[in-house]
């Protein structure tokens, strides 16, 4: 299931916030779940470094895009710090998504098929 190191990709700068917000759109999650979800959904191509995950979560919380709460999941005995998307966070996600689509589209057009004259 795990891929070679050569196939793993570092996250593009600035995209981690968007990926976290997108993950939380599905419901509340703690840090480990968020990292695993991004990894799994991207077929293990995207590796979320914990060194950037937790600073990003705390930054998003400070900006008011997510809120956190300690909760105990049903299948466990211990508490986890769950992050939840706020209304402002949803708005931010929409904004970042459209910015990302613009960028991806632009790169795709530049990298488009070469027509040989």
């Amino acid at each position, binding site marked *: 299931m795990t891929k070679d190191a050569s196939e793993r990709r570092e996250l593009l700068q600035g995209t981690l916030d968007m990926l976290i917000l997108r993950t939380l759109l599905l419901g509340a999650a*703690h840090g480990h779940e968020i990292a695993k979800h991004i990894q799994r959904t991207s077929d293990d191509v995207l590796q979320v470094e914990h060194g950037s995950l937790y600073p990003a979560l705390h930054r998003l919380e400070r900006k008011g895009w997510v809120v956190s709460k300690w909760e105990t999941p049903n299948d466990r005995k211990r508490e986890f710090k769950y992050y939840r998307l706020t209304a402002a966070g949803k708005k931010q996600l929409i904004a970042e998504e459209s910015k990302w689509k613009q960028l991806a589209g632009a790169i795709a057009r530049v990298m488009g098929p070469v027509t040989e004259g």
Partner: protein
Amino acid sequence: MRSLSAWWSKRREAREQELDRELQSHLEVEAEEQRDAGAPEGESRYRALRAMGNTTLVKEDVHAAWGGRWLEQAWQDLRYGFRGLRRNPGFTMVAALSLALGIGGNTAVFTLVNAFLLQRLPYSEPDQLVEVTGSYPKGAIVALQQVSRSMDIAAYTPDSEFNLKAQGEAQRMPGSAVSANLFSVLGVGAELGRALRTGDDQPGQDGVVVLSDALWR
């Protein structure tokens, strides 16, 4: 100040503990997963730690995300500065003294500049006023007044003294003989009664005096 700093460090400590707890819970889940993936018992925790990377660095980066670090550092710098000043009383004295002299000198100069250059004179159109320094005979003033078309000319005698005789002995009083239009040129009036008006300087009708507020009292 002390209670503020105590409050700050207490709040800081609480957040610190919460972050520790959060990272700890992460490590435990990671260790469980490593175990499930078949890592030997002693190895799983080590692998989890390795996956996390440099924990101290993670914490530092989270602190940066909290913000307010500049305030903490500024507070530290301030305290360091004060300690330095206490250690070198001589230097502190000289520094404080030169600051005091500098500020005092500036204040004095500004007071003068403010009074002479910045504040407007208490007349109706101070920017239209020109004082000609130099003395002219009375006749010349009258002639100039008649000839001039671009300005109104008023005149006064500087440094004159007059006899003032009220009850008892006469006194020498500083005063000034002025042209009748002085008050209208300056655009000021009298607080009580009337100021000089046209004709008050005609021979035979010139027994008019305007007292200063200080003398009147």
